Structures are given as structure tokens and as C-alpha cells.
């Protein structure tokens, strides 16, 4: 069995009386693509926000590569190799596409207390950034101001930024949200190329995307994981069908 990359133990998070994460145990193995599905309001984003460090859990622990990271803030987790994309596109809209990725490269190239040299002239930032843009298919759009990219391109850019931090685990919050069929198909194809060489946690509503990408699926309903297993197991699980898949199909 592959080693455990990320593990959550008895994670709790409540907003007032609402238990958004209600005792979640969760495990991601190195190299796998692990999808989290669940109906709207199931607490998926709350859950992965705790994994990325944007939210603090009320109780429970999170381990990353064997290390307890529960008390680490988001920037420290990112430096440890936990990269995240957001459900609502989060990029530097007023910077060029290349600047966006170069910033992510810079964030992981030691401290940024360099005051004199122009960051845009630094090959060690620009070249890796350019290479990643080529990889995600945005090479031709490097000089475009990010706000002027199409929606699908902005989603790609977000993933490019996550990849630029050279992550050990990629947390993707609905990467194909709001995309047209063609765009989302291209995104799924791209994510498929990452499969195997990159450990991925994928939160997604698009079931075609989930079932074509995931090695394992966990189903989150009302803050609890009601099932976890291979796509076939999940498809066959009657509880899951009742809670979730039934509504969709």
C-alpha cells in the first residue's frame, strides 16, 4: 500500500449551531487522485479550507506527510507542498498571466526581501513560470493581463499557480466550475495528464469529471463522510445513491 500523504482525524468545524464538518476522518494516499463529492451545502469547501489552512478546525488533527500541520497557517502549509485552487477563481487580476505564475515561483524561492533587482528580469522566476504556462496550455497568453483571460483560462491559470509552488499535493476546489463543455473537457484532459505523478484532492460537482479522474471517491453529506471507496464501489453504494447520486441522475 502507498504511503499516506494527507490525513484528517476526527475533524470538527461548526458555524454557530451548524456542524459544517462533523467528525471527518479522511485519508489521501501518495499518488492518488481522491475526489470529494457531495450535495450543495455538504461542507466540501469548508472541509478543504481546513486542509489548506484557510480555516482552523474546532477539533481534530491534520497530518501532511506524517507531520501534524493542524496549527500551521495557510502560507506555511503552502511552503510544505500543499497547494490549493479556489472554487471562485482567485488570481491576480491586474497582473499579467506570466506575473501570476512567477509570483508563485517566487513564493517558493526563499524569502522575498530583495529590494533592488527587477523581479520581472529574473530568469530564475520567469523561465520556470513560462514552462508551467506552456504545460497548462497558456503559453501564448503569457503577456495578457489576467483579468482579460477567458473564464476557462483563468481556471487554468489558477492551477498553473498551484503547480508553480511545486506541490506534493494539489487541492482543487471545483476546477471545472462555470466552464462550458469544451473548456471543461480540456481541463479534465489536462488533469488526467497530472494523474499519477501528482497527488490530487479534487472537489467537484461534475460527475463525468469525477468518475473519469478519481482513483478513490469520498462522499460528504452534512459534514460527514458517508462512504469512501473506488468509483465502482461508490456508484454501487445504495446510501450514496439515495443521498446524492440519485438526485443527479
Amino acid at each position, binding site marked *: 500500500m502507498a504511503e499516506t500523504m494527507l490525513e484528517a482525524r476526527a475533524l470538527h468545524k461548526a458555524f454557530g449551531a451548524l456542524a459544517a464538518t462533523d467528525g471527518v476522518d479522511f485519508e489521501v494516499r501518495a499518488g492518488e487522485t481522491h475526489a470529494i463529492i457531495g450535495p450543495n451545502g455538504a461542507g466540501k469547501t469548508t472541509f478543504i479550507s481546513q486542509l489548506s489552512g484557510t480555516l482552523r478546525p474546532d477539533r481534530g488533527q491534520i497530518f501532511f506527510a506524517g507531520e501534524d500541520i493542524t496549527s500551521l497557517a495557510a*502560507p506555511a502549509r503552502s511552503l510544505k507542498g500543499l497547494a490549493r485552487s479556489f472554487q471562485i477563481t*482567485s488570481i491576480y487580476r491586474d497582473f499579467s498571466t506570466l506575473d501570476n505564475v512567477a509570483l508563485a515561483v517566487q*513564493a517558493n524561492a526563499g524569502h522575498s526581501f530583495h*529590494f533592488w533587482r527587477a523581479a520581472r528580469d529574473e530568469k530564475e522566476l520567469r523561465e520556470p513560470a513560462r514552462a508551467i504556462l506552456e504545460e497548462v496550455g497558456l503559453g501564448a497568453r503569457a503577456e495578457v493581463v489576467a483579468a482579460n483571460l477567458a473564464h476557462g483560462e483563468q481556471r487554468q491559470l489558477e492551477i498553473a499557480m498551484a503547480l508553480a*509552488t511545486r506541490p506534493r499535493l494539489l487541492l482543487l476546489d471545483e476546477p471545472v466550475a462555470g466552464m462550458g463543455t469544451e473548456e471543461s473537457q480540456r481541463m479534465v484532459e489536462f488533469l488526467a495528464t497530472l494523474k499519477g505523478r501528482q497527488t490530487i484532492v479534487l472537489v467537484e460537482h461534475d460527475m463525468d469529471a469525477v468518475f473519469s479522474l478519481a482513483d478513490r471517491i469520498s462522499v460528504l453529506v452534512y459534514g460527514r463522510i458517508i462512504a469512501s471507496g473506488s468509483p465502482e464501489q461508490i456508484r454501487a453504494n445504495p446510501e450514496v445513491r439515495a443521498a446524492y447520486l440519485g438526485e443527479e441522475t
Partner: protein
Amino acid sequence: MNFSARTLILLGFLLLLAAVPALAAAFKEPFYLDLFRRIMIFAIAALSLNLILGYGGMVSFGHAAYLGVGAYAVGILAHHGIHDGFLQWGLAIGASALVALVIGAVSVRTSGIYFIMITLAFTQMLYYLGISIKEYGGDDGLRLAKLSQFGDLVDLSNPTAFYYLVLGLLTLLLLLVQRLVNSRFGMVIRAAKSNEARTRAIGLSPYPYRLAAFVIAGAICGLAGALLVNQTAYLTPDFMNWTRSGELMFMVILGGIGTTAGPLLGAAALLLLEDLLQGWSLLPTWVHRYWQLYLGIILVLVVLFAKRGLAGLLPERKGGKDG
């Protein structure tokens, strides 16, 4: 290095400033030497504010604090008979940086209205401190018996020499800030302004960078304070009045937030307009009498119609660099 149109215009503007002493002498109007020196000193203060406000998104409503600290550092040393300029200006810069470190350590963690209120509150504290210390003149302020002394290097009582010193410092600081905002450091504070959540997600904690920028801005403004007290040969707690902070903010916004030339354009426009409305003999007396009203109207119009300030009216930059 390639020069954008904006950089060329800025260089042209600096050359024009360099010609002011000769022009003022030719037209026998020494007053303009004084006015333009004042403009440049405020441009230095405004460019320091622009670093944190324009590039860092930190709306400091207490930036006059450092003008005051810088001025008092010079004034207090002079009061005790220490006139050495290096000591005085060194203390002005150091003390302003220290005050900025304290204010910044508390305020930089906050944002929005809280940041504005905390920076304002600290500055008001310093303002009232200035009023209450009778030893240094209290409300009435302090007269500078002697301007800062730099031995044979430069004589500040020579208006032209002082003028060129200020111009030199302004040019140097414009270059410094331009380098700063395009460096890795500058990219971080601009990124944190653009999208803080994203910045944290890629592994950058904005706080230490913002705080450093805040301290650098404070130090530069402290130097402007040291220059200003030599300009007026007099200082009062009014240097730190919140309306002064507002004026600095207005210079930055008027000139064009987050642009290299903006603070200089803003300081020049605001102070020249003030002077024009108050004293230009071609204007009727009802303008002179209520000049603040007309200044206000003009400022409102500029903000409404030139949203990116005066620098925004200059030709657009083409490459990646901000000009």
C-alpha cells in the same frame, strides 16, 4: 534599460525643476524657488505614502506623523545646541522608522477602516504629545535657531544650494521607490494588495513585507520632515495635524495612485493650485477670499474625471514595467 514615454516625461519634469532657480533669478521672483522647493519636499513625503498606499494598498491616514517626527528630531537637537545635519537628519530618519515600526506592528495586521482609524489615532496621539510638551514649544512650536549644518558640503541657508539638494534627494528617492516596487519585495506587497487570499495560498505571508514597506515609507517621510523644518525654519505640532495627513493622501490620489510620477505631479498640482487661487492677481478677489472652496471643486472634478489621477493622463505604459 528602455525608457517608456512616462519615464521620459518624468525626466523632463525633473529637468524643468532643475531650471527653476535660473528662471526665478532671471525673472527676479525668488518666491518661486521657495515654492518649488516646498513642492519637492511634499513630493518626497507623498512618494513615501504612495509606496504603502498606492502599491501596498495600506490606506494610512496618519502619514503626517513622520513629517512631524522628522521635524521634531531636527528641532529638538537644534534646541539643545546640536546643529550637525548628519546627526539631525540621521535621527529624523531613524526615529521615524522606529515610530513607523511601532505603529505598523499594530496596524498592519488590520485592514480597511480599522487600519485607517489606527493610523489616525496614533498620529493624533503624537500631535497631542507635541502640544503638551512645553519644553519644545507646545502649541506655539519651535523656532530653528540655525538650519542643519553640513560643514563645507552644502549650505542650506543658500536657497539655491538647498534647492538642488532637495531636487537631488527627490530624484534619488523616485529611483529608489521605482526599483523597490519592481523588485521581489515590491511584487509581494503589490500581490498582497491585489489578492491577499491568493498570496497566502502560494506560500507568502504578507505581514513582514507590509511592515517593512511601512517602515521604509516612514523613514523616507521622516527625511521629508527634516527637509520641511529647514524649509520653514520653524515647526509646530501642526506638522502632524490630521489635515496634513489628508493633504498627503490627496497629493497621492490626485497625482495617480501607484505610479512613479504621481506623487510629484500631485504635490505640484495641489500646491500650485493653492498658490494660484490665493495670490494670482488676474483672479477676482472673491476667488482669493474663498480659495479653499474653489480648490475643493477642482479636486472633486479631477477625482471624478481623471480616476487614475494626473499620471493617468500621460501616455499608457507598454511593457511590463510601471512607469
